[in-house]
C-alpha cells in the first residue's frame, strides 16, 4: 500500500486569539502549533493500514504551509510515516481550491493506493480540500470516514452524518477524509522521534491555484453577556422556568 496523508499545521486552539494589525487574520505572535487533530487520525489510519499489510509499501506525509510546518511533518514521521514533502508557501490561502490544486499537482501520477485527509482543518474550517483533490485527480472519494475496512483493491467505510451514518463501498485508488471516532492516534515514541530526524523531507514551492475566495476580515465574536446564577439547589428551578418563559421566551 502506498498511502499519502495530507496534514496541516494549525494553531493550538486553547489560545486566546487576537486580530492582526491588518484586520484580516489572527495575530500569530506567541501561538503554539500542532498537527490538526483530524489529520492525526488520518496518519494513524494510514499507519494501521500499512501495518495490516505486513508493513509493505510506504506512508508519505504531505503538508502545504510555511517552513515551520517541517515540525509537523517530523511529528508525522516520528509516529511512523516513512518520508515527507513540504509544499512551501508563506501562509496557506483561504481558498481551499487554490490549496487543492497545489496538492493535486504534487499527488498526480504518484501511484497512490489511498490519499487520506482529516475531515476538517480546525483553523480555516473549510472542510473542502479532500473532496476537491479527489475531483481534480479523478479519484473516488469518501468523506467523514468513521469506520474503514480495505481489502483486495476495494474498501467499505461508514460516513458519519448528523445523527446517522451511511455505509459506502469504493474501489482503490481513492481519497478518504477521516472523522473523529475511527481511531486514537499513537504518541511518537522516543525511538520514533530519533528515527524521524533521519527520514527524508523534501521541500518544494507550492504550485497554488488561482484564488476565488479571499479572507477580507477577521473578528472575535461578541462575548456572551455574563449570565446569572439563580441558586445552588432545586429551589432555583421555579425561577429558571419563569425566566425561560418570560425573558428568554423559549418555554
Amino acid at each position, binding site marked *: 500500500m502506498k498511502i499519502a496523508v495530507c496534514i496541516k499545521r494549525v494553531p493550538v*486552539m*486553547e489560545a486566546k*486569539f487576537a486580530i492582526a494589525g491588518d484586520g484580516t487574520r*489572527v495575530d500569530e505572535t506567541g501561538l503554539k502549533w500542532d498537527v490538526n*487533530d*483530524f489529520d492525526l487520525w488520518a496518519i494513524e489510519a494510514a499507519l494501521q493500514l500499512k501495518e495490516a499489510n505486513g508493513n509493505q509499501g510506504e506512508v508519505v506525509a504531505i503538508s502545504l504551509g510555511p517552513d515551520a510546518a517541517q515540525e509537523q511533518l517530523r511529528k508525522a514521521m516520528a509516529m511512523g510515516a516513512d518520508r515527507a514533502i513540504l509544499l512551501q508557501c508563506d501562509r496557506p490561502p483561504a481558498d481551499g*481550491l487554490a490549496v*487543492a490544486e497545489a496538492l493535486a499537482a504534487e499527488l498526480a501520477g504518484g501511484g497512490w493506493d489511498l490519499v487520506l485527509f482529516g475531515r476538517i482543518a*480546525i*483553523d480555516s*474550517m*473549510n*472542510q*473542502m480540500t*479532500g*473532496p*476537491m*483533490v479527489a*475531483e481534480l485527480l479523478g479519484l*473516488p*472519494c469518501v468523506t*467523514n470516514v468513521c469506520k474503514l475496512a480495505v481489502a483486495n483493491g476495494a474498501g467499505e467505510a461508514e*460516513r*458519519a*452524518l*448528523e*445523527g*446517522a451514518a*451511511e*455505509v*459506502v*463501498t469504493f*474501489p482503490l485508488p481513492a481519497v478518504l477524509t477521516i472523522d*473523529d*471516532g475511527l481511531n486514537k492516534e499513537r504518541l511518537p515514541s522516543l525511538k520514533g522521534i530519533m528515527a524521524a530526524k533521519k527520514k527524508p523531507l523534501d521541500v518544494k514551492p507550492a504550485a497554488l*491555484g488561482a484564488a*476565488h*475566495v479571499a*479572507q*477580507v476580515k*477577521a*473578528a472575535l*465574536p461578541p462575548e*456572551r453577556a455574563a*449570565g*446569572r*446564577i*439563580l*441558586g*445552588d*439547589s*432545586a429551589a*432555583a*428551578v421555579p425561577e*429558571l*422556568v419563569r425566566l*425561560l418563559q418570560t425573558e*428568554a421566551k*423559549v*418555554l
Partner: protein
Amino acid sequence: MANVLMFAEVRGGELRKVALEALVAARRLAAASGGGAVHAVLAGAPGVGAHAAALANGGADQVLLLEHDGFAHYNPEALTATLAERLRGGSYGYALFSATAQGRDLSPRVAARLRTGLAPDLTGFRVEGDAVVGEHFTMNGKVVATLALSGSPALLSVRPAAFQPAADPRPLATEAITSAADPMASRVKVTALRQGNSGTLDLNDAPVIIAGGRGLKAPEHFRLCDELAAAFGNAAVGATRAVTDEGWRPHSDQIGQTGRNVSPTLYVAIGISGAIQHLAGMRTSKTIVAINKDKDAPIFKVADYGITGDAFEVVPALIEAVKQAKAQG
C-alpha cells in the same frame, strides 16, 4: 440578475429541514443580486417528487426533479456531474448548498469540477458588486472570518440553523431532469443508511438540546437528559466528547470541536464543565442554561442562567416544572 441553483437535501427519502433553510438563503441571494429565479434540485428514488410542493411553498420558482432508483441513497458522483452540467449552462450566477455532511461532501466536488470558488458554512452573507461577502467561523469557532467570493458561478454553503425556514409560496413548477452520468455506474456507492436514535429529533433540527457531561457519572443517568428532552417535547439529547469517548453515548451525539456544531434556541448543559472544545460547538446557542455542582466551571461563563447545584436533585425538579409549564401552556 442571476439565477440561483440550490440543492435540496434529502435523507432516507425525507426532505431535511436544512433544505428549507437553504431555500430561504437562496431567495435572499436571488433578491440581493437583482431578482433572479431560484431553482431547487430535488433528487431521490421515484416518489421523492412528493416534496416538490414543500420547496415551492418555501420559495422555489422551479423544482428540478431527478427521480431514479440510483438516487435512492446519496449519490455524490452522479450529483456532481448533474449539478456541474446545469451550472455550466451559464444561466446561474450562484449555487447554494447546506453545510451538512452531505452538502460539504457535494459542494467541493462541484466547485473543483468547475474550477470555481466555494465559500463554506456561511452564517450570513450579502452581495457587494460582483462579490458575495459572507461570515464564516474559523479557529474552532473562536474567530469570525469575512470571506469575499468572486467568479461565476459562485458556490456557497450555509450553516444549519443560521437561516430560519419560512413560507414564501410560489406556484408549483416542476421540471423532470435526467442525470448527467449513469447513476448506477458510480464508483462510490452508498449501500445502506443507518439512522441514529430513530423517533427522536436530530441535533441540528431540534429547537431545544439537552446535553449531558461526565458530571452525570454513569451512562444510565442519561435517562435524566432523555426525560427532560421528553418533557420539552421538541428536544434532542447531545453529549460531550468525554461521554462519547467512554461509550456512554454514540459518537454521532458529540457536540464540540470534533463533533457537531449546534445553535438551538435553548441549550441545557447538565454536568458539563465547559471545556473549550465543547464550547466551540454550542456557544452560538440562543439561550444557554447550565446545571453543574462546580460553581467555578467555565460553562457558567457562557450560560445565561446557571444553577450551581447537584444535577441529580435539580434535573428531576426541572423535569416536573417543565411538564407542568407545558401542560399549562
